[in-house]
């Protein structure tokens, strides 16, 4: 009987202890109120806090931050455009030799090019125009009646170097075309005072190595050009007039680097 009592006491004790009500468990989560996933119920931080990242959220910008959640207006867009123009047709309409001592007659329209458009243009928003070995800019004064209208403030200088080396504009060197002479001297390559060189043996004109044209465009932006070739692949014209050139254009106003 006594044994029965002990057993029942034990059983009761087991039941009591086993069936005791549990206290509530702590909640884990982000416990930092500055985080965007702050969990006010969480009592234990599980390192899952996510914070706001400020930055450029536009994937077309050069400093686009794929992690940024908030655009902080810091996006920088590429203002530098590089391109290659192949065989721009600037043949003079006629290049007629005359009996000596008369100089040859060169007539025809200039071919106008715009850096902003990256192509040959019509109208007044041109930056540079070509005809045969002559290169003029939309600024300054016309030196010949056959030249196109000038409406801008373009200027230019010629400097020795490679496209990579010349990365900053030296404004003090800029020259504009004048009524008596163009900023880029057109000597047909004979004395190499301009961009090209004439070979008396082969009668071919080729660009001088290491000559970079630094240009202020008609609307005060900057660009640089390296002329690569003066003839088209088939050499349709012995007088050349097909410009192939590399250029780099800084579309941001008054930015002197490119």
């Amino acid at each position, binding site marked *: 009987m006594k044994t029965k009592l002990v057993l029942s006491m034990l059983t009761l004790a087991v039941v009591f202890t086993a069936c005791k009500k549990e206290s509530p468990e702590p909640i884990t989560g982000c416990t930092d109120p500055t985080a965007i996933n702050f969990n006010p119920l969480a009592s234990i931080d599980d390192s899952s806090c996510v914070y706001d990242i400020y930055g450029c959220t536009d994937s077309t910008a050069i400093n686009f931050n794929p992690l940024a959640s908030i655009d902080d207006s810091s996006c920088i867009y590429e203002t530098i455009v590089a391109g290659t123009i192949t065989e721009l047709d600037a043949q003079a309409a006629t290049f007629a*030799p*005359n*009996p*000596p*001592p*008369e*100089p*040859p007659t060169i007539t025809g329209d200039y071919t106008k090019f715009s850096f902003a458009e990256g192509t040959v243009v019509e109208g007044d928003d041109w930056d540079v125009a070509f005809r045969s070995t*002559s290169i003029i800019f939309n600024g300054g004064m016309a030196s010949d009646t056959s030249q196109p209208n000038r409406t801008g403030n373009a200027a230019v200088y010629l400097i*020795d*170097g*490679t*496209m990579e*080396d010349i990365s900053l504009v030296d404004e003090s060197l800029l020259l504009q075309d004048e009524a*008596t*002479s*163009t900023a880029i*001297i*057109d*000597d*047909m390559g*004979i*004395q*190499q*005072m301009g961009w090209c*060189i*004439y*070979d*008396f*043996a*082969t009668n071919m004109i*080729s*660009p*001088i*190595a*290491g*000559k*970079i044209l630094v240009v202020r465009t008609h609307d005060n932006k900057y660009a640089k050009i*390296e002329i*690569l*070739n003066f003839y088209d692949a088939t050499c349709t014209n012995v007088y050349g007039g097909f410009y*192939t050139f*590399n250029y780099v254009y800084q579309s941001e106003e008054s930015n002197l680097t490119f």
Partner: protein
Amino acid sequence: MKNTLFFLSILFVFTAFGQTKSDSISIKKKHKEVSISATKSSKSLDALPIPGSIISEKEITETAATKLDEVIEKQTGIISVPTKTGTKGVQMQGLDASYIAILLDGCPMIGRSFGAFDLNRISLADIEKIEIIRGASSSLYGSNALGGVINLISKNQVEDGKNMFLSMKYGTNNSLNSSALYQYKKGGLQLSNSMDYYKTDGYDLIDSDLLNTINPLSNYSFRIKIKYDLSEKIILKANGRYFNQEQENTGEKSNLLLEGESQIKEWNLGSSIKYLMHSNFSTEAEIYTTNYRTDEFLLNQNGSLFDKNYFDHTLLQSELRNNFNFKAINGIIGFGMTKEKLDRKYFSSIAQQDLKFLYGQLDCLAFGVVDIIAGSRYDNYSNYATEISNKLALGFPISKQLKINSSVGTGFKIPDFRQRYFDFTNSTIGYTVLGREVAFDRLTAMENDGMLQGIFIPFSEINSPLKSETSLNINVGIKFKVNEKTSFNINFFKNEVVNLIEAQLVANKTNTLPVFSYFNLNQVETKGMEFNTRFRPNSKLEIKAGYQLLFAFDSDIKTRFETGDVYAKDAETLVSFKLKKDDYFGLFNRSRHMGNLKLFYQFNDKLDLNTIITYRSKYALYDSNGNNLLDTYDEFIDGYALCDVGITHHTNASKSIQLGVKNIFDFTNPEYISNISGRLYYINLKINFKN
């Protein structure tokens, strides 16, 4: 200072002879090759302390050469190549044709196109040997001998009787060259008559174009020489030469062929009287005149005149030479005057120039061993600054086998008529080139007429005459005779030429077209080494080899490479890149290495074989990467070797027949080398009548 040194050296010569009584020079002359170009009197080539060589009659005969260019281009360090202007000229020690005087029996030949002398004009029918003096020789020969002298010496007859040589050569391209030489001697009278006729159909290396590479041409020349000993002491000489060449002239305009003709007429006349006053003193008065005229025209398709051109150059020279021997000294003192005139298209008036000159040279054997040549020449031009040219050469025998030679000389070339009187406007693109003497007046007139737009060089700088181009030449070399079978010589040379004349932009016309005139601008340097060897293992075989190493560059361009930025365009991308300091190759049309190998084998008395290989390493005529200079990235013309083989059968003492092939491997480079026509076969018959 320079002159003081020079006069001191003359003094040295005089004091040196005083202690010696050597008469070895006259003994040495026997069986030795004798040069007269270096001293204007006979001097043994072995004793000559300046770099010189002789092309013997044997070599001329063996190679079946009938014109000067055929034999000259086989010599070490000498090439005859078309230049950028298309004219063919000879190059020596890296200096081009306008600096090398061509003489016929000591008298200057004229008639150059852009400074180059066409060596095909000179027949070898009556030539005994060709002497070549390398390096500045203005101290004897004045202007044009800045780089050296090529002197053709005609045959002299020693024995009484008649002598007649006939030769007939026929070969590829329907080329025919026949010549006859008649010599007669009786006592004091010597007569030599020669005639040469040459014709060729020319050749065309590029079939696809309208023009031939070389148009058909024919030429003939006559030469007569008379020598008469009036007495034992007085010798009279007279000579005359006439040359005439006709060649088809063609041109191209708008893909149509223009045809015409070009003609060259040239004559030379000379006479002299020599008085052998004493065994130690002789004097000779000589008068010489020559005229060279070319006429050429091109007609349009309809027969009307397209272009006409002429060039008429005359030279008259009188000279008095005095030779003396005093103990071991041979001396020469000469003076004279030269009148020259040139009338040509693009000259507004006939250009003239007078010159008075005085020269003296001593050669002697000092202390019985040291060969000394010291010379000086004074040139006084009517409208130019005077020029003084000096030369000092010393030869030291170290042993019987070895001799060290050294020479220092100055040379000059006065501005040519084109650089002074040219008045030319290009009809295709319209630029104008003005000679320095006409530039000031023409430019001032243009300015007054409002024809000028920009002036880049003040006219005051053009109002003074051009300076002569001058050079300093140094040679140091050894001659080494290893044994009876083997000998060689090495010569290190250096030429510094300053005040080179180049055209430069002076002004722009209102149509932006440029006006050029000539200025003293550049400075070039050529230096290198020449090596020649001869090996004769037995009486049947002779081997000769020659090599020249050459560095030739423009000093200003070299400085630009060292200090500044020089760029070139990449051949593929055409994008510019910066060149490094050692990317400068040097002057155009210069090969770093040139060599030749000559082999002569005599099978027996009747049959012999002759082989010549000449080699020239890569060079370039034009810039190809946009910097107007020659760098290692430029396109070069590949080096090439030419091989000639000839076999001669001596039927008897007076008859021989030669068969041969020139350029046996048929090398051509149609694009760049117009004067190498491909394989040429020839047959050459020679007959000698004697009684």
